[in-house]
């Protein structure tokens, strides 16, 4: 229950931060993608299921407020969360290389999927422009933000796991 409430709070928090504060702190019109960081982190820290549920709700929020149709962003975020969950087995909290690589990869995948579903299908074929001016800057900016945000998410997750283990032991 505690985990559920905290996850919901994190999702709403990152959505609000991204649509307000970070939108004001943009560099050259590009904002980092906090929700990808959140979705990917929960994916490889907690497994496929958590990843895909967090992703689904992150995407749904974006859909409700900014999407053209309901469900497209939800699907993109959900698959990213699920794929990150596949790496749960080789994730160790001490290692920062894997999370950074995964988040970078997730943002690239997100950019690609956005381009394909929302631009390529409308006949915008100038991929190199979109890659160099939208996808790549967003990846760089996202990874910068990750360096600060990821330790916080890791810390929250560790606290939660500690609490859960303690209460489980008490129960036995």
């Amino acid at each position: 229950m505690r985990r559920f409430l905290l996850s919901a709070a994190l999702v709403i928090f990152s959505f609000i931060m991204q649509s307000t504060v970070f939108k004001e702190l943009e560099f050259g019109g590009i904002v980092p993608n906090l929700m990808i960081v959140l979705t990917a982190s929960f994916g490889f820290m907690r497994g496929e299921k958590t990843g895909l549920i967090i992703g689904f709700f992150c995407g749904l929020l974006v859909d409700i407020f900014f999407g053209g149709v309901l469900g497209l962003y939800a699907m993109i975020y959900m698959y990213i969360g699920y794929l990150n969950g596949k790496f749960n087995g080789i994730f160790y909290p001490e290692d920062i290389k894997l999370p950074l690589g995964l988040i970078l990869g997730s943002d690239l995948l997100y950019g690609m999927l956005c381009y394909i579903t929302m631009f390529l299908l409308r006949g915008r074929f100038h991929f190199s422009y979109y890659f160099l001016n939208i996808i790549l800057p967003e990846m760089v900016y996202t990874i910068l933000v990750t360096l600060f945000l990821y330790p916080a998410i890791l810390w929250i997750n560790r606290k939660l796991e500690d609490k859960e283990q303690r209460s489980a032991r008490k129960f036995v």
Partner: protein
Amino acid sequence: MSPIVKRKGEKFTLPGKYLLFILTILCTGLIVLTFHTDILSAPASTIGGFFVTPLQEGISKAGSWMHTRSEELVQIRSLLKENEELKAQIDELTMENIRLQQDRYELTNLRELYELDAQYDEYDKVGARIIAKDTGNWFHSFVIDKGYDDGLAIDMNVMAGSGLVGRITDVGPNWAKVMSIIADNSNTSGMVLSTSDNLIVSGDLELYAEGVISFEKLVDSADRVVEGDKIVTSNVSDKYLPGILIGYISSINVDSNNLTKSGLITPAVDFEHLEEVLVVTQLKQTVGDS
């Protein structure tokens, strides 16, 4: 054993891939359902408005405060230089102003004569504040702090200052989503004010960094349209009220078919620094209405 069959005493859990499968179908269903209809937008927007909008409002204020502070620091140096230049300009402009006032006096007289009252002034407008902007980098929509409780409805036009910003595409009880005319998926029917030639104004992400939008399908065989001409919303648009300023033509060239022209428009609104907008609470009359 099959993960779906429940064994006695074992806690039931749904494996990730089944959940993924179910949610994928759900999403696909939603996409298909909402592509042409808006059945679900009412409940979804109500939920969104309940949870998120009040928080966004507060934090957005904090965000813009930080933004203003950081801009202030950057600008102080350039402001000093600018100040001197501007003082010189004031003298120049005062002279021009006097001349223009005379022109304006004449114009007002002529307008009265032709009963061509400025059309904008007739539209009822409601002010609203922007509380959130699109989370991604692909489109340029934003959320304002008024909704159907304040009398707003889908397709109402949104302006800032004297120019067109966009229109409302989704509305909740206390918020509304505005799609701007510079968004890549936006097309607006416009016309050249001086010659009444129709054209299509479309937003383009590739041109966004340059601060311009593109127009196309301008039929102008007499070559009367020139750079600097005003573009306003057209009479034939089914969403936009006629005569709202979109921007000025900044470049124009003939298409390869030799029939139509296309080019670039500088929008009348500064989309980078939008904070407050005006919503025109009057809908364009369409064929179905009586």
